[in-house]
C-alpha cells in the first residue's frame, strides 16, 4: 500500500514539470551567475599580489633604489614598481594603475589616492626605510664604533614570524556563496513540501477528500507523500551539487560524498518545513506560499546569502541565531566539512538537521492528524 502510494506520489511529483524544471534550473542558473560574478575576486582582491607602485626619483637616492629593487625582485615580490616621472606617475595613480607613488627627494614621501590596506603596506614600507635610515644616521653620529653591528643587524634577513595555515580546506571566501546557494535550494524544498498537506487534507482539495474516504490510513498516505517529496528533492540536490562541483568546477572542500549527504539531508529539512507550514492553521494557499517564501528568504539573509559576513556579525552578537537558523545549519555543514579537520562540529550540524526534520514532521503530523473537518 505504501509503495503503491509512493510510486504515484513520485510519478506525479516528477511529472510536475514546473517544480522539477525550476528547482533544477534555479541552482544551475544562479550557480553560473555566482561563478561568473566572483570567479576571480578571491584571487584578485583577497589574496595578496604585488602592489603596483610608481617610483619617482627627484634626487639621486641609490639606497632607496636598492631597497625598492630588493622588494620588487623576489619570487613573490611586495611591490611591482615602475620608474617614471611625476606627471606620468600622477596619471597612473588617478587611473588606478598604481596604488601609490614613492617619491625620493630629500625625504622619501608617499602619495596615494585613498586609504586602504595596500596603501598601508606602502606606508609601512617607506616608514621602515625611514626608520632604518634614521637609526643608521644616529649610530654613525653618536656611536660609530657600533655602526657595523647595527647595519649588520638591520640588513639581516628578518623572519620573525612563521605562518601556520589554520586549515587545509579551500579558504576562498566566495565559496560560502555556493554553500548558501545549496542551502537555499534545500530550503526551497519547502515548496515541494507545501503540497503534501494540500493533497492529503479533505478540506483543502477534492483530491485530499478522495484520499480521506479511501481505506488507506492517513499515516500511510502522508508518509508516502513525505518520502516521495524527499526523493524528488534529493534528486534536485544531487543535480545542484553535481553541477556546482563538476560543471562549474567549484571546490567546495571536504569529502564530496558527505557534501552530497548533507545537501540531501538539508533538502529533506526544507521539505518538512514546507510540510509544517502547509499544515499550519487554515490560511489560504497563497498565504502559505508567501509565508514559506518569506521565512526561507529571511533564513537565507541571516545565513549571509546577500552579505557574506552577516553570519560573522550574528556569531559575535547573537550566536544562538546561527545555531537555530536552518539555512545557516545547512551551509555550516559544508563549511565544517571544508575547514575543520575533525567531524565533531559537522556531526552537531547534521544532528541539528535531523532534529529539525523529526520536529517539523511530527508537528506537521500532529496538525494534520484531524480526520474530520468543521467545514470543507
Amino acid at each position, binding site marked *: 500500500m505504501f509503495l503503491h502510494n509512493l510510486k504515484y506520489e513520485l510519478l506525479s511529483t516528477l511529472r510536475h514539470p514546473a517544480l522539477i524544471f525550476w528547482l533544477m534550473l534555479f541552482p544551475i542558473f544562479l550557480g553560473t551567475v555566482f561563478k561568473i560574478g566572483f570567479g576571480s575576486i578571491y584571487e584578485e582582491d583577497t589574496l595578496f599580489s604585488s602592489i603596483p607602485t610608481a617610483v619617482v626619483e627627484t634626487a639621486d637616492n641609490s639606497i632607496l633604489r636598492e631597497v625598492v629593487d630588493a622588494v620588487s625582485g623576489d619570487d613573490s615580490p611586495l611591490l611591482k614598481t615602475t620608474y617614471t616621472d611625476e606627471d606620468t606617475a600622477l596619471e597612473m595613480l588617478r587611473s588606478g594603475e598604481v596604488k601609490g607613488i614613492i617619491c625620493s627627494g630629500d625625504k622619501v614621501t608617499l602619495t596615494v589616492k585613498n586609504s586602504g590596506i595596500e596603501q598601508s603596506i606602502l606606508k609601512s614600507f617607506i616608514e621602515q626605510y625611514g626608520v632604518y635610515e634614521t637609526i643608521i644616521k644616529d649610530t654613525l653620529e653618536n656611536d660609530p664604533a657600533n655602526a657595523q653591528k647595527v647595519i649588520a643587524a638591520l640588513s639581516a634577513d628578518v623572519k620573525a614570524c612563521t605562518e601556520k595555515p589554520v586549515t587545509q580546506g579551500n579558504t576562498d571566501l566566495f565559496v560560502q556563496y555556493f554553500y548558501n546557494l545549496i542551502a537555499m535550494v534545500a530550503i526551497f524544498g519547502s515548496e515541494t513540501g507545501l503540497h503534501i498537506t494540500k493533497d492529503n487534507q479533505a478540506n483543502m482539495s477534492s483530491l485530499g477528500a478522495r*484520499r480521506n474516504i479511501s481505506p488507506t490510513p492517513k499515516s500511510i498516505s502522508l508518509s508516502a507523500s513525505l518520502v516521495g517529496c524527499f526523493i524528488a528533492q534529493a534528486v534536485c540536490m544531487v543535480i545542484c551539487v553535481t553541477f556546482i562541483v563538476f560543471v562549474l568546477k567549484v571546490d567546495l572542500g571536504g569529502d564530496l560524498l558527505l557534501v552530497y549527504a548533507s545537501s540531501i539531508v538539508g533538502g529533506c529539512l526544507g521539505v518538512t518545513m514546507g510540510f509544517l507550514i502547509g499544515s499550519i492553521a487554515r490560511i489560504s494557499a497563497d498565504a502559505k506560499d508567501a509565508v514559506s517564501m518569506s521565512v526561507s528568504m529571511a533564513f537565507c539573509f541571516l545565513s549571509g546569502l546577500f552579505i557574506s559576513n552577516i553570519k560573522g556579525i550574528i556569531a559575535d552578537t547573537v550566536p544562538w541565531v546561527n545555531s537555530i537558523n536552518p539555512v545557516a545549519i545547512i551551509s555550516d555543514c559544508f563549511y565544517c566539512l571544508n575547514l575543520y579537520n575533525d567531524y565533531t562540529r559537522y556531526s552537531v550540524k547534521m544532528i541539528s538537521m535531523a532534529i529539525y526534520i523529526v520536529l517539523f514532521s511530527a508537528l506537521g503530523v500532529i496538525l494534520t492528524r484531524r480526520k*474530520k473537518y468543521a467545514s470543507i
Partner: protein
Amino acid sequence: MKNTVVKAENIIKRYGDLVALDHFSLEISEGEIFGLLGPNGSGKTTTINCILSLLSFDKGSIEIFGKPMTPTSYDIKKNIGVIMQNVAVFDELTVYENIDYFCGLYITDKAQRKQYVDEAVEFVGLEDFLRFRPKKLSGGLLRRLNIACGIAHKPKLIILDEPTVAVDPQSRNRILEGIEELNRNGATVIYTSHYMEEVEQICTRIAIMDKGKKIAEGTKDELKRMIRNTETVTIEILGLEDRIKDRISTLPHVYSTEYDGTKLTVGCSGGKHNLVRILGVLQENDLSFGRVYSELPTLNDVFLEITGKALRDKED
C-alpha cells in the same frame, strides 16, 4: 426486509449560525438507487460529506453497513465508492495511472487490480484515452474519468454527488445507464442531483431536501401523490370571457384556472375525465380553440409545490 446500508439519524450540522442540516434522518436499503434532490444550498453535499465522515457534525449518528462510520473505519470505506462533485484526479498522471492509483488505495492485489482497472476503463469507455493527461480530456471525458476513479474497486455502496454537471446529453445518458448497470450488479447507489429528469429516470426512492431538512421522501409515485395537482390541462383559446372561466373553475376537481389572453391553464386534483368536462364547457358556449394539452405532474411540480421554488442549474 432488505439490509440497511446507510442509516443517518437526527443529524445536526451548524456552520456558525447557519444550520446546514437540521435533524436530518435517512435510511437506505440494499439495492436501492436513492435520489437526494434539493435546490442549491439545501445540504445535499453536506449530507454526503457527513455520511463519509469527512465533516464533523454537532449531533446525531451515522451507520453504514450496520456499523458506526468513523474516519478510521477502513473496513467500511473499502466498500464505498465516491464520485465527487469536483473532478478529483492528478493532473500529472495519465488516465490509466489515475484509475490505477485510486483503485490501488482499495485493492492491494496487483492482478486483481489490473483486471478491475481494465473493467473500469471499459465501463466508462475511455479505452482510447488511456495515455492522455486529464488536461487533454473534454469535460464529459473528464467526468467519466472521475467516475472510473470512484468505482474501479467495485464498491457495494456508490455515492454520486452531481456527477453529470456540465456533461453533454450523450455522456449523461451513458453515465446514467452505467449507474443502473452498477445497481443491477448489486451496488446500492446514493445519487444527488438537481436534474429532475435524471432522478425520475433512475431512482427507486427519492428524498427532497430544503434548507437542511428532509421535506418529503418516497418513490416517485408516492411523491406525486403527495401533491394536489394530478393533471394540468392547457388550452389555446382567444377572447375567453371571465364568465366562462368562472364556470370552468366551478367544475369538480378543478382547483385553479388561469388565463393570459391566449392560453387557459387549468389545474386539477384527482378525478377522471377532467379534460372532457372542460372541453364540454367550451363547446356549450360555441367557442373554438386551438391545441389542447393534458400533462401529468412531474417531479418538478412536486418540487415546486413542496419547496415553493424552482430549481436553478448551478450549485452555489
